[in-house]
């Protein structure tokens, strides 16, 4: 187990290093930051001087090593737009992103789990049909469009909720519901199909042959085993939410990391792009790490392999 932990930590570190490398090389292709930093009409000499100053004239590999050295110290450079350390700018926006993604996740899992379980247990009923139809629609609806539609109806037409922004609980409602629809649709569909698979397992027949009460069979034999695929799905959805934050936060004018990264890309603000993607990817790597450990708790067979 300890060996496994060390190995898994090493893998995580390797993944983060890979991310840093990809981000470094991709951003170097984006354009010339020196030209951006100076006012329009700056002379070629001025640009050259600044390039020298920023270390942009050194060989790419040297720049990469320097960059790695800085990243290890948490230094992503100064934001061109904000004039402050990039990591600081990103971390300021982190709570907003975490709040939105977290509340959407919790809400979505709750709704999705209940709906999926009902659909699996009431096979062939009207309830299953309704749940599955809604889930299918929910999965097919692009999150950003659903957001716009909810804004149109509840914000513009009914005027019940703010159309965007951040600060109060009312601001959180629409974006959280929008994302929760997507999460719960995926969870409901996955839970239903994995429960139907589990229902075909031999050990369910054993449980029924033991004359156990239906709720015992459900909780300890069906749900307990269905937790494993749902955990996997949770990690995947977390990635989708973090990646999709770029879009949702734009739709709802939500001041999170996603919107910050988009603005930074438009402004070619490399330090912020790098810091932003680094933070989001690290968070995602961390989530995957935790989920992996959770498997060990949920599935004794996996525990034994480690």
């Amino acid at each position, binding site marked *: 187990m300890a060996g496994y932990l060390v190995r898994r930590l090493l893998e995580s570190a390797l993944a983060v290093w890979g991310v840093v490398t990809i981000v470094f090389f991709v951003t170097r292709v984006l354009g010339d930051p020196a030209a951006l930093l100076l006012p329009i009409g700056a002379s070629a000499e001025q640009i050259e001087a600044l390039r020298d100053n920023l270390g942009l004239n050194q060989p790419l590999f040297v720049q990469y090593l320097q960059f790695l050295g800085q990243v290890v110290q948490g230094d992503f450079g100064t934001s061109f737009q904000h004039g402050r350390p990039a990591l600081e700018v990103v971390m300021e926006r982190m709570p907003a992103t975490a709040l939105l993604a977290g509340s959407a996740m919790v809400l979505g899992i709750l709704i999705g789990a209940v709906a999926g379980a009902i659909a699996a247990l009431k096979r062939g009923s009207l309830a299953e049909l309704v749940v599955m139809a809604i889930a299918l629609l929910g999965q097919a609806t692009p999150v950003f469009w659903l957001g716009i539609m909810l804004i149109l109806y509840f914000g513009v037409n009914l005027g019940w909720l703010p159309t965007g922004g951040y600060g109060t609980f009312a601001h959180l409602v629409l974006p959280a519901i929008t994302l929760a629809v997507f999460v719960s649709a995926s969870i409901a569909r996955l839970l239903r199909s994995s429960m139907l698979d589990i229902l075909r397992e031999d050990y369910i027949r*054993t449980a029924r042959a*033991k004359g156990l009460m239906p709720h*015992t069979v459900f909780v300890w034999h069906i749900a307990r085993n269905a937790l494993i695929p749902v955990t996997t799905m949770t990690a995947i959805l977390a990635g989708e939410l973090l990646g999709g934050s770029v879009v949702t936060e734009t739709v709802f004018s939500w001041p999170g990391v996603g919107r910050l990264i988009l603005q930074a890309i438009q402004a070619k603000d490399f330090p912020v792009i790098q810091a932003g993607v680094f933070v989001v990817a690290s968070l995602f790597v961390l989530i995957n790490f935790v989920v992996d450990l959770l498997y060990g708790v949920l599935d004794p067979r996996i525990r034994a392999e480690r």
Partner: protein
Amino acid sequence: MAPPLLEIRNLTVAFDTPAGRVHAVNDLSYTLNEGETLGVVGESGSGKSVHVLAMLGLLPSPPAKILSGEVLFQGRDLLKLPEAQLRELRGGQIGMVFQDPMSSLNPVLTVGRQLREVIERHSDLRGAKAEARATELLDLVGIPNPGARLKQYPHEFSGGMRQRVMIAIGLSCNPKLLIADEATTALDVTVQAQILDLVRDLKDRLGTTVIWITHDMGVVAELADTIQVMYGGRIMERGPVRAVFRQPHSAYTWGLLRSLPDEGARAQRRLYQIPGAPPDMANPPAGDPFAPRNPYATDRCRTEVPPLRPASPVPGHMVAAWYDLPARLAAEAAHG
């Protein structure tokens, strides 16, 4: 004479498939007395497993459908019993052991938990008392160090040990009837031998009635009082083990026995082989299902299903055949 423990009357079970309705069990009737051990022999598609799952309400429906019949257990018709009452019987009065001990135990729960939950379901034992009973059961089925083993998960047990656990679960509430469905098929021969010894010992000690489903004639010979040979969803032959093995009256039973390698039979190079293949249950042959593979089949066999009739003077020896096998064999022998 005491009434039989189990009486099945005209049980017919079918599966609805895209290709149409497939009859897995056809008009099956038999009785089982208390303390008796019944060995049910048949190959895939014979209906041997389906009929016991059907009577305990364990077949998924759809696609399975019980079309007719009664299953009287201690006088009560299981097929008409509400699910709640059937649940009381399952695991309590009737224990079951399945073929694959690998997949029949829940992989994420400890063995102790899976034993305790059935004990607590059907008895008043709780907590430490249930734990003690679970330990006692593991000990009973010959698992060393039962106290520690209870805390382990199924994957930490070998196949044979897992099947012992399944037997412990099946026996946990002192059932009147234990049903084992191919319980030793997935096991190594030496482990199978140990399990057979164990079951023989347990049924002698506890007086349990047993239905042992298998495809192995040898296992039946070792364990059963009565043998019931099934084919194509029907009983081909049934009777006291000794009588049936000594003089089978169904060509199928006879073929199965002859195709086994004999002790000291090396001189003859070829085994007797039953020609053809098991019937396609979606398109079963008319008449006797075994007729297309039966060298002794008569025209009547191919058109009309033979009823189960007394086969020999031995009480309870029944056969479903339009032909007289011993007479035919004797005639063949006389002609050289």
